[in-house]
């Protein structure tokens, strides 16, 4: 890599150190008197403490020592350690569910059991199976079977009633017995089962039970006019039941009971206001208005000075906590307190999502996909403690340490070492908590922004939309491609290709949707198919990273015009993702932008940009001085 | 002091760490008294310094013999031989001794290797004895491994 073959390069040993939100990276190099650089090695470790605080010292020293050890150099030989000026960034996440589905008077059963029985539509009066014996022939009956009845007994009882002339047209069962019962009936009827709260089904009411053939969906009860026909409704009543029809759309089976005031409603839950200060204005928006409305208001309050949420709501709590955490980490003994006014929410990203939730008033654990808003927020302060970190590093290493440059500028400088790029160049650092952008114009001017929302928000969206309830699994879904284990000897990848294996796959992945981790397939505990999981994963990435890439680049682009950018280099952990770089590149392509994952120094991939940028900036100064001396 | 021939120990020498630290060395030849906190902090010690040496195991075998425990002493002598075998190979050899894991020839090969590569005749004898018993009790690997029926 260096020009000095055959002997140790001459010049001074410098280390660039980038303290990022999650990783600390070091770049070790020799800078010759003429400013030429020989790179000796890099290292990477986890950042200790919040970026920009004295706790960073430990991680910084570790990365420096790691790079020295790899290059076989000792701390005593180091001339200068160069640190980035990093502003502390803390991000937070919250989610508010903003809709709720309620069934009143046990009007409807629409939980879609996997194995209903029989086929067709049956309309009659609801009667308990225990009372069938007293039932007079003639009137059509929908039989309701409580818990504790054995399937053989149910079938025998129904057959006996039919034989006695009772017109049993359908049945509603508590247990998972529908196929078992219909297989034993002399006269086939539609049967809906697994109605866990069957004792709440109103008796003596007119009810309709519909079951479609396997692979089909119901036609009558999901159609408002079908309901009107079945229950003989007038136009006013038909209007009232239309939410019921909508709620049943797509089901293979359903029950509708006609009760005096039964209803299905989709209620909006007020979850309080978000108050945004910025651009000299104070704007308010209801969180339950949804992401689009929130982002529209955020846009009007740019640049954002601060945001607050309603106390007692998730969003309010999250915003307050992010602020408090920042205040805590900035509170260093012997240093002046940071005024609260400097600790403010500087960006908010709202994303529409949905949360599978049990329906209130449901009889069978019906689940509705309720609307929700996920919010990421970021607090940043201009007050950094990096000089303190530099002093501590200097003390710990026994070498001089200084602030060598500002993060964004250095990142751009490092990114410029990617083969094939030139000014104007923008970098996008895709991190865990925030997405950062910086632009270096042809003229050498640099601007940088941080926007809220990155990898952690993606994980949260995947976790809640797939109802995984397990962050580890959600992380796996985010990071690795999917597959379906079709036998012990083959699995189908998400692109449809089949891979055969020689060693049988482990039993716990048999027949499951899996993520293909480097350690082998790991099961995703979900009832959803591979395609659904894939869609959720890609949508989550799109809604966070593609949206944020555009948002951040617009903020640094001259005049907000993306066409003014030429090269965009992706950096950071999520730039290693197997699909995010392509998704961002696709979104930027229409603007005439070349976009790709960085390859810092031609070897480091999207890593080490800031650390090597620091070395480059330092070398430029050395070269400048050399020129001054010689002239 | 050079460690040959090993001294004749009696039960009164136990514990060696207290009564005879002069006899104890680490695999890199440091005296046990060199295992200090300062040495740890300065990075002079590596994990191998905390391993037991074959010489020390032979001393403990003497103590076991002196206190009437010949089987324990034999175990220590096998262990002394094994200090030379890398961790992974020790586990591999253990696995090879499981029932129906190795053919008679494979066990004989292992015994040879113990003798020739690691100068471990006592361990080799144990393996040969196992091979003989496994042969008699149908515990050698079968030519065609079919666990189906």
């Amino acid at each position, binding site marked *: 890599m260096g020009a000095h073959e055959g002997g140790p390069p001459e010049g001074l040993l410098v280390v660039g150190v980038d303290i990022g939100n999650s990783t600390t990276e070091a770049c070790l190099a020799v800078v010759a008197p003429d400013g030429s650089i020989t790179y000796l090695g890099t290292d990477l470790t986890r950042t200790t403490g919040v970026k920009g605080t004295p706790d960073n010292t430990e991680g910084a020293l570790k990365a420096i020592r790691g790079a020295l050890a790899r290059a076989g150099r000792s701390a005593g030989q180091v001339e200068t350690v160069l640190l980035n000026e990093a502003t502390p960034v803390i991000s937070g996440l919250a989610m508010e569910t903003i809709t709720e589905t309620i069934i009143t008077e046990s009007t409807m059963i629409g939980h879609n059991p996997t194995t209903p029985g029989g086929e067709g539509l049956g309309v009659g009066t609801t009667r308990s199976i225990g009372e069938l014996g007293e039932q007079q022939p003639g009137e059509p009956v929908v039989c309701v079977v409580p818990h504790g009845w*054995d399937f053989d*007994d149910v079938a025998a009882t129904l057959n006996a009633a039919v034989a006695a002339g009772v017109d049993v047209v359908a049945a509603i069962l508590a247990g998972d017995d529908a*196929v078992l019962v219909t297989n034993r009936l002399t006269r086939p009827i539609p049967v809906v089962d697994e109605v866990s709260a069957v004792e709440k089904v109103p008796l003596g009411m007119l009810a309709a039970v519909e079951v479609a053939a396997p692979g089909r969906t119901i036609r009558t009860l999901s159609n408002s006019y079908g309901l009107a026909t079945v229950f003989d409704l007038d136009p006013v009543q038909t209007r009232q039941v239309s939410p019921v029809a909508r709620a049943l759309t797509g089901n293979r089976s359903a029950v509708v009971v006609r009760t005096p005031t039964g209803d299905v409603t989709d209620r909006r839950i007020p979850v309080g206001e978000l108050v945004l200060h910025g651009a000299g204005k104070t704007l308010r928006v209801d969180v339950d208005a949804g992401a689009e409305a929130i982002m529209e208001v955020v846009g009007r309050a740019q640049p954002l000075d601060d945001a607050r949420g309603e106390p007692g709501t998730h969003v309010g709590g999250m915003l307050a906590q992010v602020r408090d955490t920042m205040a805590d980490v900035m509170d260093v003994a012997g240093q002046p307190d940071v005024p609260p006014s400097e600790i403010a929410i500087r960006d908010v990203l709202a994303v529409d999502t949905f949360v599978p939730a049990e329906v209130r008033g449901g009889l069978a654990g019906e689940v509705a996909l309720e609307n929700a808003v996920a919010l990421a927020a970021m607090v940043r302060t201009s007050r950094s403690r990096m000089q303190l970190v530099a002093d501590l590093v200097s003390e710990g290493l026994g070498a001089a340490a200084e602030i060598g440059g500002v993060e964004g500028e250095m990142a751009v400088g490092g990114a410029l070492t990617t083969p094939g790029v030139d000014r104007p160049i923008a970098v996008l650092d895709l991190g865990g908590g925030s997405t950062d952008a910086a632009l270096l114009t042809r003229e050498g001017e640099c601007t940088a922004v941080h926007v809220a929302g990155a990898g952690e928000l993606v994980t949260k969206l995947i976790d809640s939309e797939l109802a995984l309830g397990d962050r580890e699994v959600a992380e796996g879904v985010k990071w690795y491609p999917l597959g379906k284990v079709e036998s*012990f000897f083959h699995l189908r990848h998400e692109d449809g290709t089949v891979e055969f294996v020689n060693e049988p796959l482990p*039993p716990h992945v048999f027949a499951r*949707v899996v993520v293909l981790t480097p350690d082998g397939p790991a099961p995703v505990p979900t009832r959803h198919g591979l395609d659904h999981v894939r869609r959720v994963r890609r949508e989550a990435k799109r809604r966070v990273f593609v949206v944020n890439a555009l948002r951040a680049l617009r903020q640094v682009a001259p005049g907000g015009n993306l066409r003014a950018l030429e090269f965009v280099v992706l950096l950071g952990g999520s730039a290693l993702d197997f699909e995010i770089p392509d998704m961002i590149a696709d979104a930027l392509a229409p603007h005439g932008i070349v976009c790709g994952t960085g390859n810092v120094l031609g070897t480091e991939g999207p890593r080490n940009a800031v650390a090597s940028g620091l070395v480059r900036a330092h070398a430029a100064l050395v070269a400048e001085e050399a020129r001054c001396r010689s002239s | 002091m050079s460690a040959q021939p090993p001294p004749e120990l009696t039960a009164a020498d136990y514990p060696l760490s207290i009564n005879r630290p002069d006899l104890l060395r680490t695999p890199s030849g440091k005296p046990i008294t060199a295992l200090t906190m300062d040495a740890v902090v300065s990075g002079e010690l590596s994990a191998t310094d905390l391993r037991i040496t074959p010489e020390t195991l032979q001393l403990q075998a003497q103590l076991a013999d002196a206190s009437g425990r010949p089987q324990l002493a034999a175990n220590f002598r096998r262990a002394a031989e094994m200090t030379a075998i890398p961790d992974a190979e020790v586990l591999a050899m253990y696995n090879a001794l499981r029932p129906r894991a190795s053919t008679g020839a494979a066990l004989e090969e292992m015994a040879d290797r113990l003798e020739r590569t690691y100068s471990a005749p006592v361990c080799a004898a144990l393996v040969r004895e196992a091979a003989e018993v496994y042969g008699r009790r149908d515990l050698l690997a079968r030519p065609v491994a079919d666990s189906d029926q």
Partner: protein
Amino acid sequence: MTTPTTTAPERTVSLREVGPARRGTRPDEVVIALSPAFAGHFTKTIVDVPHAEVLRQLMAGIEEQGVTARLVRVLDTADLAAISHTAARLSGSGISVGVLSRGTTMIHQKDLPRLSNLELFPQSPLLDAPVFRMIGSNAAQYAKGESPQPVPTRNDQMARPRWQAKAALLHLKEFDCIEAGRGPVEVEAVFGPGTAG
């Protein structure tokens, strides 16, 4: 609501041999394999769940999923893994459920090593009728290529003092019923009284 007619007499079952067990060809079948003493020397599990009920619920779980159940009895071993694996290799779908007299149950698949399994329910004292139903249902779902959630296994630290010795005793008795050298036989379940009329 009225209460169900729980006073129906307890169902019984006997197994009628219909010939040597054959390899199935239907991909929509699950083979249930019964141990030597199941519904013969013994009539109920370690916690007195009648074998008739174990079998009915396993079969019902399979039928409810639209899959067919076929029954075999394994005579030459009382080892659950061996019983289950034998059955898996007879099953047209490759899926089997093996059951010991004391209730211990396993779902197996033909391509797995014998000592492995898809789901194992080792704590026989904690298996009741609803669990057997779920086991049947899961086995059928595997046969259909679906991904059932594994049946939740339960644990009870105090099962040891109560059941460990009885389990050993039942195991020994089952061993006594082994007929060495006899291959698996196809059986038909003949259920006795109990169905309300």
